[in-house]
């Protein structure tokens, strides 16, 4: 097993959980460590309960893991909820002035901090957080200087006095812990790596900028809003027009308008907003104007649980808008992939002049991961397909010399002229039309033409399939257990496979990234030799399992599902696999132990 170290910080919203979290993250990444962070929170600005987990280690940290090594409860509630998560070797740092500890597990260390004796708490309201930061780093074997540097940066704007006051408080905590508490058995190592730490939302926004997006619009909706925030903050430097629109119907239509005029255009939302965009996706497909829509899933239905994760929107994506039309649908596998997938799907959408949908979820959107800065490539391949941007580029003319926007072609793709190009005027219509763009849907309805146009558009499906790689199996080919997942569960399933293998159950993984096209034949080919197959997904009804069955007739041996709003932890999957191998059940629904 890879060596990792996880910190859990719990408290009420507004109590400053984020700041120590950010400082730990910064110190870890500057030591060359990888990290993965996730904040379990509620839709409340003050109060409630939030629990931030940061897991770090010298190798890639793909998920939140199973254990908390250091717990920092900022209030009694956090202590009461989480102390029971600690096992031998772990420690809990708490303000003993205000918080009563519970009973800790055998070998878990309770570390009381007499905050009011260590600092002037009337002057510094967050002294307990700063003392805990210092104490924690001491126990992790991290030199004080690292903290000193970050605090100096953090408080620079507030002046020298504030900087030295905070450094002083942190040092007291650091020294108190050195004198009074047992250090962790595994001092945090250092590596020469340099990584960037970012959320999936930031990654998708930056991925858009890298792909050449020049128009981005949105209506705020958790957990997609981070994309808007990054775009808005960087728009002027990146040369991107960013608009906040009156509703998601306006969003998708405005994005399509901009795309039609020739720019790469993107928008993001969550399930509810996506529902409003549905008709617009059909418009994109019918006018053959490419647009990329990101759906950051949260727990549904309806307003649902705005701050909790789920993979419950798959069938909405598959069924979005009525009628048959070509579309591309990809679910990024991790936060680094959130960046990459955007330029890939734009190339597909542009080449095949159809909507591209990125199906993300809160876990990736709002989680944070360290990535190699080289993986944030701002020079990706840009393929705009058959686009006519001036009178001298591809004319798209038919035999009669006249431009036909919806020219019947073998590939189904017709050269697309953008407005402003002389000699290519045409009308793009949401009504069914002929090659010229003339409507056939009203009084000229013509079954022959309708069929020809339908087949033209649908021929693009084969092109998309050829342009997108089929999934591959990860891990040993002769495994006992094959875990099948899609999108954001990649990391946690990967770790579950490692644990199972360590425990003598050889496991491998099939993780689906492209949902449309699915490459059903390739999947069947991979699975035909699998011994025990389990489909792991974050929803109630097994949306992917049902989709896979409808496309391939494949039925797995069992299902592992979770729909309580929180992501899987590796042990959930490991225990479910064992339970199913023993024949107890075919459907496991693990219970989440961290109560937030």
């Amino acid at each position, binding site marked *: 097993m890879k060596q990792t170290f996880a910190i859990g910080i719990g408290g009420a919203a507004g109590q400053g959980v984020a700041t120590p979290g950010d400082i730990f993250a910064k110190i870890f990444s500057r030591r060359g460590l990888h990290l993965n962070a996730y904040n379990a929170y509620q839709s409340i600005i003050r109060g409630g309960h939030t629990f931030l987990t940061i897991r770090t280690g010298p190798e890639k940290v793909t998920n939140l893991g199973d254990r908390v090594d250091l717990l920092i409860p900022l209030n009694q509630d956090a202590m009461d909820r989480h102390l029971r998560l600690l096992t031998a070797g772990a420690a809990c740092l708490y303000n003993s002035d205000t918080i009563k500890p519970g009973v800790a597990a055998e070998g878990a260390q309770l570390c009381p901090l007499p905050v009011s004796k260590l600092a002037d708490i009337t002057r510094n309201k967050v002294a307990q957080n700063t003392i805990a930061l210092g104490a924690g780093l001491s126990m992790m074997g991290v030199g004080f200087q690292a903290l000193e540097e970050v605090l100096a940066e953090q408080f620079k704007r507030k002046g020298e006095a504030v900087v030295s006051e905070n450094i002083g408080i942190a040092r007291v905590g650091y020294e108190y812990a050195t004198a009074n508490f047992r250090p962790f058995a595994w001092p945090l190592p250092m590596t020469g790596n340099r990584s960037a730490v970012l959320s999936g939302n930031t990654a998708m926004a930056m991925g858009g900028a890298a792909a050449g997006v*020049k*128009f981005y619009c949105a209506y705020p909706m958790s957990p997609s809003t981070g994309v808007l925030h990054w775009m808005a903050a960087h728009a002027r430097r990146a040369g991107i027009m960013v608009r906040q629109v009156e509703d998601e*119907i306006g969003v998708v239509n405005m994005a399509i*308008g901009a795309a039609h005029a020739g720019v790469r255009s993107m928008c993001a939302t969550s399930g509810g907003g996506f529902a409003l965009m549905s008709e617009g996706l059909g418009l994109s497909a019918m006018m053959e104007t490419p647009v990329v829509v990101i759906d950051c899933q949260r727990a549904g239905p309806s307003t649902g649980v705005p701050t909790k994760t789920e993979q419950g929107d798959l069938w909405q994506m598959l069924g979005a808008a009525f009628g048959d039309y070509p579309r591309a649908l990809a679910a990024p596998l991790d936060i680094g992939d959130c960046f990459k997938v955007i330029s890939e799907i734009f190339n597909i959408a542009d080449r095949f002049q159809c909507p591209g949908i990125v199906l993300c979820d809160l876990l990736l959107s709002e989680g944070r991961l360290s990535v190699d800065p080289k993986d944030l490539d701002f020079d990706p391949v840009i393929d705009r397909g058959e686009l006519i941007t001036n009178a001298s580029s591809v004319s798209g003319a038919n035999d009669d010399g006249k431009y036909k926007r919806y020219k019947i072609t073998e590939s189904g793709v017709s050269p697309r002229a953008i*407005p402003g190009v002389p000699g290519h005027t045409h009308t793009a219509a949401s009504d069914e039309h002929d090659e010229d763009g*003339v*409507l056939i849907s009203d009084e000229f309805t013509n079954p022959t033409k309708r069929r020809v146009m339908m087949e033209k558009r649908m021929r693009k499906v084969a092109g998309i399939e050829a342009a997108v790689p089929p999934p591959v199996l990860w891990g040993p080919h002769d495994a006992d257990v094959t875990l099948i997942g899609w999108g954001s569960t990649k990391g946690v399933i990967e770790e579950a496979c490692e644990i199972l293998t360590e425990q003598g159950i050889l496991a491998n993984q099939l993780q689906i990234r492209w949902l449309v096209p699915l490459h059903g034949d390739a999947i069947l080919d991979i699975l035909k030799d699998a011994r025990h197959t389990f489909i792991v997904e974050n929803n109630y009804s097994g949306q992917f399992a049902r989709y896979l069955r409808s496309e391939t007739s494949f039925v797995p041996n069992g299902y592992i599902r979770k729909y309580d709003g929180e992501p899987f932890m590796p042990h959930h999957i490991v225990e479910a696999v064992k339970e199913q191998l023993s024949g107890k059940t075919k459907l496991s629904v693990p219970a989440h132990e961290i109560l937030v």
Partner: protein
Amino acid sequence: MATTLAATNHVAVADLKGKVDPDWCPGCGDFGVLAAVQKALVELQIPNHNVVTISGIGCSSNFPGFINTYGMHTLHGRALAVATGVKLANHDLTVLVTGGDGDGFGIGGNHFVHSMRRNVDLLYIVMDNQIYGLTTGQTSPTSRVGMKTKSMPFGNIEAPVNPISLALAAGATFVARGFSAEQKHLTELIKQGIQHKGFSFLDVFSPCVTYNHDNTYQWFRPRVKKLEDDTGYDSADWMAAMGKSLLWDTEIPIGKFFERTDVPTLHGAEPVLDAGPLAHADMRIPGDVTRSFVEELM
């Protein structure tokens, strides 16, 4: 709606004829609107490839197919949202939005209000026939109280919207009303609307001869009075415009109610567009800028 005059290639009405002839009912008011738009484009000499005509869905919304410019025949109610995207992606284009009263004030009401407060630089022409034509005659948001239609056979009990007052209240910077049967007057309003820098709203009485037997040409003719004939009327006076917008029944004003030119357009207010239209911008971001984006995360 600002525009640049064509230097070369004379534009004639024949150049603006669409690929098919309109399929509107003989006598439909929309013919007059089409003719006036074509005349206005000829008089302004705007090359047709620099014009995008964008509509929603309805009889009136079939308009883009009947004029030879770039066209988009979008979704019911969504033309203004699409048009805003087009204008922001390429602000060198002249954007015309055409549609019906149901399309614009009913299903598209939200976009109508917000496009006006944004001062998107385009001309929005509503062919207002006080009825849903394409769906064969149901009550529309501008149908009068008491009007009997297939969907309200015992008479409409809901008050209609007043598009002119609504536009004034929402911050439209050019507000006018025309009558399809008043060709010269209408053409003049369209020209002014195209030339206005900002959101130009033009509500046009465009009778539906098939389904609206209340608001016919005969009904409108004696009632419409041109604001231009009232020498004392000042279209820079918003309060006066509001007052005029409330007149109905015996005297219904047509003409330019209001215009102000001191409000920046949406595209003019955004520095990202200073370097020119995005549709022709370099897709790659300079390396020093992208490096700074990554540095922020380290």
